[in-house]
């Protein structure tokens, strides 16, 4: 087993003249669920896109599963869910999954498994374009689960889902982590943050805090991530 799943050292990304990420350093151990928390515009998506290799770094280094981010060897080992579902609206759930499975070189039997995991058995033959926002988000999540990747990067995966379903997906995330999978889950909703054992707080492209949630609450002497964030953000100004 490798030491750390993600190792970021002084990662800086400049996009169109502005610093989206400034000297971001952190390490994420395998088998952890880390919440990437920050307001919109804080650099969450840029950081996520850097980890999956879609964003070039201006400076710094980023190791993912012991390889440089963006390496060819990582392309079938990371499950990536973008903020808005990256799926084909004019295909059914199953057709979407079968296509991505064949690109990843994964057996079709895995398609049935991931459909069950995201609870879309009744929508397998439905056109994705005719589905609700929550169902579309789950199709996108199912694609990321194909092949049981070691690292899952999820950009706001549970936004707009009903509470029962959200609960189920968090249970799924928990069982994946217990099997040794690493999850990095971004959210701008603070109550999502409460579910993550580890937190990486981001503001204005800088790391405000990183570590276990318990330690964060103790250190700031608060009872919620929301208050801890406010206190840290206040201190930073």
């Amino acid at each position, binding site marked *: 087993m490798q030491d750390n799943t993600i190792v970021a050292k002084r990662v800086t990304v400049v*996009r169109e003249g502005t610093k989206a990420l400034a000297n971001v350093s952190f390490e994420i151990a395998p088998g952890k669920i880390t919440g990437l928390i920050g307001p919109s515009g804080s650099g969450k998506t840029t950081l996520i*896109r850097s980890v*999956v*290799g*879609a*964003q*070039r770094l201006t400076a710094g280094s980023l190791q993912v599963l012991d390889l440089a981010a*963006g390496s*060819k060897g990582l*392309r*079938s080992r*990371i499950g*990536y869910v*973008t903020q*808005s*579902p*990256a*799926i*084909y*609206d*004019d*295909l059914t759930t199953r*057709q979407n999954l079968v*296509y*991505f499975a*064949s*690109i*990843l*070189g994964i057996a079709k039997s895995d398609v049935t498994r991931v459909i069950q995991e995201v609870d879309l058995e009744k929508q397998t033959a439905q*056109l994705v374009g005719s589905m609700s926002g929550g169902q579309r988000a789950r199709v996108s999540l199912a*694609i990321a689960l194909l092949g049981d990747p070691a690292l899952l990067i999820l950009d706001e995966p549970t936004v707009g889902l009903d509470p029962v379903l959200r609960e189920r997906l968090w249970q799924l995330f928990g069982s994946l982590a217990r099997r040794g999978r690493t999850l990095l889950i971004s959210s701008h909703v603070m109550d999502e943050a409460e579910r993550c054992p580890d937190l990486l707080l981001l503001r204005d492209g800088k790391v405000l805090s990183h570590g276990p949630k318990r330690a964060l609450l103790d250190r700031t002497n608060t009872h919620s991530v929301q208050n801890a964030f406010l206190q840290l953000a206040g201190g930073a100004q």
Partner: protein
Amino acid sequence: MSPRRTLATSRRVLMQLFHDPRTIALIFVVPLVLLGLLAWIYNNIPFVFDHIGPSLLCIFPFVVMFLITSIATLRERSSGTLERLLTMPIGKLDLLLGYALSFGLLAIIQATLATEVSIHIYGMHVAGPEWFLIIVALADAVLGTTLGLLASAFARTEFQAVQFMPALVLPQALLCGLLVPVATLPTALHWIANCLPLTYAVDAMSRVSRQTTLTQRTYIDLIVVLSFALLAILLGAATLRRQTK
């Protein structure tokens, strides 16, 4: 590159189209209606349809395929599926060839239909072999597909993508020898026409319609069209970026 991923992509593009039967119908029917309209317009003037019909047989598939491909690729970009795919183990050429293959398959049907209907129903007279007209029309459809793929790389919105049609396709249609023979164009325009792929396609078509046998020149025309298509696909692959700056 891998044949499995190329074929999977091409199958996926075809499945997307099957969920949109109206688009398929438009691809097949619009050229037939336009050619029929022309045959009717020139009904009382002898030889004109025989002259321009074959040229249009290669211009229509070119235009239709250019439009469809540039929109389809743009949708792939804006929906985020392109970014997702490029984080996966797919080659850029797998993606482009997948598109070219599936649209090429549609183009075979479209070109065959348009050629057969023009000859047997609209009464277009062709001296050379029919099958060669279909081959040139197909090559042109593939050219339209690959240029559409390339053009979509430079379009940020659907509005821009649609504008590329008059910007890149219409000048070729005006200069290709359809309006006046290329040799009679002013020197500068003659030079420009010689650099445009559609000129060679139209030249091949008019040779097949006038000459009973296929000459070396006709084959060269075809090779030039296919080379442009190949060049466009390689340039298209170069415009796909796995990483943004």
